[in-house]
Every structure is written in C-alpha cells, then in structure tokens.
C-alpha cells in the first residue's frame, strides 16, 4: 500500500522546493512570530502578511485545493478553542480577539503547510538537525515517519482479517475486538522496536547518533533569505509607526 499524506507535493520542483530546508524553517518561523505579535486592529499588516505567504504558495505550485484542504483540517480545532472567547470577554473586544486568533492561526498554519509540503520529510529533519534541534527528537520523528505507514498497513490487515470473519451483529463484542486489535498493534510495534534496535546494534550503534552533513547553502537560498525577511521586516517596522 502506498501512503504519502505527509509530504505529498514535496517532489515538485519549484523555486520554493529547491530551497535549503534551513532557509525555509528560519524564515517561516520568523514569519509566524511576526504574525503572532501583530497588534489586534492592524488589519493592513495582516493583509500584507497574507500577500507575502500567498506569493510563496503561488511560487511553490502546490495546488490551492490541497493547501486549503490541509488548512481545513486544522482550523476546526482552532475554532473550538476560539469560539468561547467572545463569551469570556464581554462586548466587542471578545469578537476582536476571536477574529485575531482565527486570522493569526490561519496565516501560521499556511506557513507550516508550505514548509511541510515543499520539503521532503527527511530533508526537513536534516534541516532541523543542522539547526541544533536535539538529535534524539529528530531520530524519533524519523522513526515515526518510517514506521507510521507500516503500522497503518498492519492495522488495515488486521481489520481485513476481522471483516473476513465478521457476519454482523453483536455490537458489544465488536468493541472488544477493536480493543484487541489496538492492543495487538501496540505489542507488534513494541516488538518491532526491539528488532530494529537489534539491527542497529548489529551495525555498531552504541547510543551515539552519528549523521552526515549533506546540506549546503547556495546563492538562491541567500536571495530568498534577503527577500522574504526583508518583506516581513518592512511590514513589521511599518506597522510600528
């Protein structure tokens, strides 16, 4: 079975795709910080930030429908939290905060989606690693990415095996079986972890994670740094006056 829901469009070859992951991580993080620290009534700044990230979306050639679908996955969670704000804060202030949370999270989510859908997952990890992210976290994420699909496949197979012997009815018993499948999945994952560790040990792994630096900044990365940071800095400074 094939799954690529995490970085489906990461194999396109646009300008944004070709950038060094570090450049994207740093600039997008900066973008998110700038957006979050914008004053609530500064709608013009929000529009300007939206314009900047729209340019990135446009340049990346990732289909708009895909981008918005991804946003839609996250927005309900934000909405769930934000919906109580107008009630907690009486008067028009509550609604201002509500819209603020919505706009800021929308822009921030857009930036993260751009980061994840224009960068292959292993490159993204490499980028984080070179930015001195803890290696143990990187490794955990790498394992997650490698094995999540296998676990999903395993769950599907168990489900299929159940369905092939399931003739309907007995609702309560079905719940029990689902619980069994979950438990079994846990045990299998645990045992696989043990085998993976054995195969790592067999190749000389002793707890120290050694990796290679394969990323190099090129001219286009620098140009992106300057243009992107320049644009958002201008918006920020301009909004301060």
């Amino acid at each position: 079975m094939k799954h690529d829901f995490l970085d489906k469009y990461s194999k396109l070859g646009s300008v944004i795709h070709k950038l060094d992951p570090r450049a994207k991580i740093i600039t997008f993080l900066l973008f998110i910080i700038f957006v979050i620290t914008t004053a609530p009534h500064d709608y013009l700044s929000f529009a300007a930030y939206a314009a900047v990230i729209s340019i990135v979306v446009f340049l990346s050639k990732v289909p708009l429908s895909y981008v918005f679908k991804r946003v839609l996955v996250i927005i309900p969670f934000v909405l769930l939290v934000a919906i109580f704000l107008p009630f907690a804060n009486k008067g028009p202030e509550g609604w201002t905060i509500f819209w603020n949370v919505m706009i800021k999270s929308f822009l921030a989510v857009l930036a993260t989606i751009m980061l994840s859908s224009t960068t292959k997952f292993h490159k993204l990890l490499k980028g984080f690693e070179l930015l001195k992210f803890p290696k143990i976290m990187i490794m955990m994420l790498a394992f997650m990415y490698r094995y999540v699909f296998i676990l999903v496949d395993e769950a599907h197979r168990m489900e299929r095996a159940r369905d092939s012997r399931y003739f309907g009815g007995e609702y309560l018993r079905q719940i029990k079986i689902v619980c069994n499948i979950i438990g079994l999945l846990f045990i299998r994952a645990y045992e696989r972890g043990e085998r993976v560790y054995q195969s790592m040990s067999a190749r000389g792994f002793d707890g120290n994670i050694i990796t290679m630096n394969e990323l190099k900044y090129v001219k286009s990365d620098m140009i992106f740094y300057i243009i992107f940071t320049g644009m958002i800095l201008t918006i920020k400074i301009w909004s301060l006056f």
Partner: protein
Amino acid sequence: MKKVIEINDLCYSYPDEKIALENINLDIFEGESVGIVGANGAGKTTLILHINGIIRSNNGNIKVIDMEMTDKNIRKIRSKVGLVFQNPEDQLFSPTVFEDVSFGPLNMKLSPDEVIKRTTDALEMVEMSGFENRSSHHLSEGEKKRISIATVLSMNPEILVLDEPTSNLDPKHRRELIHLLKKFNKTIIIVSHDLEAMLELCDRTVLMNKGEIVKDGKTRELMSDRKLMEDNYLECPLSLKN
C-alpha cells in the same frame, strides 16, 4: 584454513526459561559458505544472533576472528560480522536508502569521504545505484532485500550472515539474489527454509533441531538423507529426489 568462528559448548535459554540452544559446538572456516537448516523454533536465528553479540550467553564461549566475545571486542566483532535480518522493514529504518546504507560506516567513525565511497560501492555491488535518495517504504520487496544486504556490505565485513534471504521473493528476484550471493567470496552463513537455494549456495550444512546441532556435513549428502531430513521436520529438496 583459518578458523573465523569458534563456538564451544554454547547454551542459551530465553528469559521465559525456554531452552533455545543446547551444547552448540561449531567451527566455521574462512571462505566457507555454511547453511543452517531446521524446523521453526529450532534455534537457528538465536544462534546467529550470538555470532554478532546481539544475544550473549553466560554459558559457553564464542570466538570471532580470534576475538573473544567481550565488551571490549564487541564493536570490532560487529564491524567484522555483517548480519542481515529476515525482515527488511526491521533492517531499513532510516528515511532514505543512503542514510540506511551509511549507518554502519558512520558508526565505525570513518571519514565522510570514506563513508560516501563505501555507501556508493555497496549499492553498486547489489546493483542498486541511483536509489540513494529513495525512501525504503516505496521499494519493492526484492529491492528492499538488496538494500538490506548493502547496509552490511558497506561495513566491509569478513563474515556475512543472512537470515532467510530468499523469503517473500518471487522466483525471478529470488534467482537474482542467489546470483548476487554467489558473487561474494567471503565467509557466508545462511539460515533458510529454502533448501534448493541452500543447495546452490552452501557447500556445508548444519542441521538443527530443538536447540541442538543434529548433523553437520556436506550439503548434498545431508539433504539426500531422506530419513534424517524427515525426522527433523524437513524434506529432501526436489532436485535431489529421484
């Protein structure tokens, strides 16, 4: 001939006290290709895990290339014994093929240039050049098996140990793998139920049952012994029946 593996009076039981190995005595010489056969649960995999020090037993001793299995030697031993696990999904744990194949050399603390060279060479040896940036999840079973072998070849081991190398392969890929294994002129130990493949690849075969070595001899002779094979839950390969 030089002895590369020397196992004396090895016993091992799992934490649940099930006896897995009993009184194993086995010598393997340089350049030999040895098959280990036996029923499910006969202790074959447990035995080969000992060769790499993944499992260590207090009873009996193991010497690999004149090195005792001790904490001090274990790193060196592991770099000399390339162990390929049965399931490629366990063997290939990195996001990309390159990272998997370079994992061993990096742990050996080689220089970056040397690591790249070893990785490229190993992939070339298994005829998988150009797969460096692919993710192992999207490879076919045959490709995964080859890459798994490359992950240990990159460490340039003196002994290659393979657990069920031909399982889950279609006949064409199985054949290609056999050709590939035939090309290596190193000491090879293969654990498998694929007796026909063993017949082609191994000159010598060790037959195990219930944790013990029942017989150790020339593959062709051992596998032609119908009674011996059937007593140990195996059967003679078709090509030896007449």
